[in-house]
């Protein structure tokens, strides 16, 4: 996903011992946050209200989200409350496996790394059936037969890399992979996408018998079509018997097509009941409307402060709200088009990219453009929140106009009328570089998303600094979707964009392991600028396939290389949301960097 939308979150749970009854046998099992008495009542009671992101209400309840519905709100803030994923990623502020909230124990791997075995904990559907291995297979059959509809689908990855799925017994399922993949990568990116589905959904019409229709590809397509069709009836979300079968902590009591949702605890939930007895999520047409509601005293308990209203921060804090910046699992960048007929050859020169990066005064941008609610980015692995994946602690190309100028002059560029011009064409070490003709000027056009005021300020600053080194950047503003559209990978004469900045960067979602096969590998679908580097390609492949002991070192090598090579220009990343939490509401922080909310862990005092 790429957009920044809003949402709050949870607290971690400690491991607990829970008694489980499985198939008549009493099994004691240690599972963090797993099962407990299914009929326990809410602990504290009360209602907590929450603001959906502006103009982004939930629009789909079927967890196998189609591409057009694959939004953070639908996945991490709505369906996850009702239908629990096999593996829950995100614990506290860390992007790691949350064993407590997962439906299964950590997977085990065969010695050759090609067979992964998943053993389910004891969880129950609200219709009284156990969450079983067959439910996992049901998902697998649906996603395999309908992969072109799956919003999380990347060709070659899940489910293409699963060659067989076998139910071993009611609680164990085994996946055979097409090769040995990096186990952390496979867990965070692939297994985490699986959401076991109740077999009561395995049918092709309301009155059809359920349970076996998914077993053939044609049947699986028909089931998907039926369920997808049901999910298009938004007015029935709180009443359709299909959607009443849940295994998450909540069930929908009320849902309106504008997104207004009332959740109440699922009394049959296998784990601890929520602290509150009602969770209300409210839609807002704009951030202004939401903030007006907060200022007037009628706003949600958990909402947000628009960045443009930062001057009003003191006033809302005085009202009893606390402010919790919410960083997401994201890096921010300016795309460079290496295939542009005019400037592609220029941008292909590393020293040019280094000069451009030296001109990025990220510290000033963070302070003045983003009001301090941002941080510098030096590479493709997010540094915030603090995590073990990121190993780039200093800027390889700190802000230094003189250094940028020197890089240009030592490679044969001279400043004429304020713009650097190639005066020494050629491929030698002190010449402009391959494909750059004498007289070529360092003039670029940056397509810039216009909905983001801090970004506009930051880029004005960048343009100003670039001009001091003889680089002329023309900022062309356009709606973000226009920038998206123009930034598509391209080649030939029509490949017109030069620099593209849609401002929200790249969020690792739903592939949470921060590798670059989607973005920087040669030919990748979202390698916008067509960056191609065989060393980088090898590094990426290794991050995807490294054995456990070398997983982190592979990630280190990958990110260090790209931080140096600059396939894009790194620019500051900013908080996904400045969350406001009303006094007396607890458990909202720390917020999940993968943008989940867990209102069952919120409470009122």
């Amino acid at each position, binding site marked *: 996903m790429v957009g920044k939308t809003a949402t709050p979150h949870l607290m971690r749970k400690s491991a607990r011992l829970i008694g489980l009854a499985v198939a008549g046998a009493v099994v004691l099992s240690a599972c963090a946050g797993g099962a407990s008495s299914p009929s326990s009542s809410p602990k504290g009671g009360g209602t907590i209200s929450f603001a959906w992101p502006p103009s982004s209400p939930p629009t789909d309840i079927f967890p196998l989200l189609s*591409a057009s519905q694959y939004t953070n709100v639908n996945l991490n803030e709505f369906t996850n409350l009702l239908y629990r994923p096999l593996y829950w990623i995100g614990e506290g502020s860390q992007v790691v496996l949350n064993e407590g909230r997962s439906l299964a124990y950590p997977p085990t791997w065969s010695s050759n790394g090609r067979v992964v075995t998943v053993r389910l904990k004891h969880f129950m559907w609200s219709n009284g059936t156990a969450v079983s291995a067959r439910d996992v297979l049901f998902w697998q059959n649906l996603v395999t037969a309908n992969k072109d509809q799956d919003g999380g689908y990347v060709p070659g990855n899940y489910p293409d890399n699963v060659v067989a799925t076998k139910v071993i017994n009611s609680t164990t399922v085994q996946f055979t992979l097409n090769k040995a993949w990096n186990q952390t990568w496979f867990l965070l990116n692939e297994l985490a996408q699986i959401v076991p589905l109740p077999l009561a959904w395995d049918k092709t019409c309301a009155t059809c018998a359920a349970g076996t229709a998914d077993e053939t590809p044609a049947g699986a397509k028909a089931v998907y079509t039926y369920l997808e069709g049901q999910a298009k009836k938004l007015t029935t979300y709180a009443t359709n018997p299909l959607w009443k079968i849940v295994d998450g902590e909540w069930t929908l009591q009320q849902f309106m097509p504008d997104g207004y949702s009332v959740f109440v605890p699922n009394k049959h939930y296998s784990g601890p009941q929520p602290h509150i007895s009602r969770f209300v999520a409210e839609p807002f047409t704009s951030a202004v409307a939401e903030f007006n509601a907060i200022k007037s005293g009628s706003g949600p308990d958990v909402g947000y402060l628009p960045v443009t209203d930062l001057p009003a921060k003191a006033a809302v804090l005085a009202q009893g709200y606390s402010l919790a910046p919410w960083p997401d699992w994201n890096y921010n960048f300016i795309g460079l088009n290496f295939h542009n007929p005019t400037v592609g050859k220029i941008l292909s020169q590393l020293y040019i990219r280094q000069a451009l990066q030296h001109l990025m005064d990220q510290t000033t941008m963070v302070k003045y453009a983003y009001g301090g609610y941002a941080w510098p980015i030096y590479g493709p692995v997010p540094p915030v929140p603090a995590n073990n994946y990121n190993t780039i602690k200093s800027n390889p190309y700190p802000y230094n106009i003189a250094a940028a100028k020197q890089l240009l002059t030592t490679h044969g560029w001279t400043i004429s009328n304020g713009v650097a011009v190639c005066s020494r064409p050629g491929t030698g070490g002190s010449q402009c570089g391959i494909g750059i003709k004498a007289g070529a000027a360092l003039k670029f056009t940056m397509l810039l998303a216009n909905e983001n005021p801090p970004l506009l300020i930051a880029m004005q600053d960048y343009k100003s600094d670039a001009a001091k080194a003889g680089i002329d950047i023309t900022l062309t503003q356009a709606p973000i979707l226009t920038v998206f559209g123009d930034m598509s990978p391209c080649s030939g004469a029509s490949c017109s964009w030069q620099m593209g900045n849609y401002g929200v960067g790249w969020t690792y979602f739903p592939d949470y392991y921060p590798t670059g096969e989607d973005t920087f590998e040669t030919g990748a679908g979202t390698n916008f600028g067509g960056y191609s580097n065989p060393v980088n390609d090898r590094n990426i492949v290794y991050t995807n396939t490294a054995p456990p002991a070398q997983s982190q070192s592979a990630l280190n090598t990958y990110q260090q290389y790209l931080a140096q090579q600059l396939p894009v220009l790194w620019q500051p990343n900013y908080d996904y949301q400045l969350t406001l939490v009303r006094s007396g509401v607890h458990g909202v922080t720390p917020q999940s960097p993968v943008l989940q909310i867990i209102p069952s862990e919120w409470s009122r005092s």
Partner: protein
Amino acid sequence: MVVFLIRRVLEAVAVLLGVTLVVFLLIHLLPGGAARALLGPRASAPVVRAFEIANGYNKPLLVQYVDYLARLLHGNLGFSYHYNQSVGALLAQDGPKTALLVGMAIVIAVAVAIPLGLAQAAKRNKALDHIGTSLALTGYSLPVFWVGIILIQLFAIKIRAFPAEAPQGTTVSQVLSQPSALVLPVITLAIVTTALFSRFMRSSAIEALIQDYTRTARSKGASQVRVLSRHVLRNALLPVLTLIGLSLPGIVTGAILVESVFNYPGMGLLLWNAASVHDFPVLMGCALVAGAATVVGSLVADVLYAIADPRIRY
């Protein structure tokens, strides 16, 4: 009159057809296309391709347009992948809410603007006229968005007399059940509309005041009130009626901002969001409804012409 109405309805159909063609062509000129915009930049090529085929976006533009018209004739306005609902359902849900907002604003605007404009004309270049003109020009110059925020600041945040949000709910009856929440959004939209209408009413009434029939009425001893109400008002209303009919699109545009500020998801905001995400079916549906509203507004104005002035015959 019947022949006139039939002719106008046929013209309206032609106009709407033209509207759909122009909007259809314009929105397909947007860079990136619907699939990429709706599915996001990370959508893989096979997913984008499947989406385009499923929705006919891979066909020539003309074929897509003809397909659209064919569906339209069957009452199918299309499906919004952004909202995951049919366009018909979205318009049925949000359209009446905007109609209510715009309708109430127009009623208030007319109720205030017509007597105000008339009084200004009667007291031309007097204090009342100057005050009215100043207020109208001020009201007309204020951005709707800004007016809304100021009213919220004053009446919802400082005084707390009215809610900061418009009524919440998906039906008109739910909206009407929260009348106090309607006050600020309706007044916001009415302020600018009143300013516009009162200026037209004033100039139209001034024009009527110097006509022979007014002079004749005065010479026959009619009182000022009678002259204004029986002779000036009816004649001065004619251009204002046309204005009301033709100003509908502009008022709906204002409603977009009001809906955004007051958290009132109506058709204006639906149109805005559809444009933001290249939701072509919704854009087409909204354009069709807005076009129909304008044509109907104009038609109603013509009919009201005949009622207001018996000399007019069609």
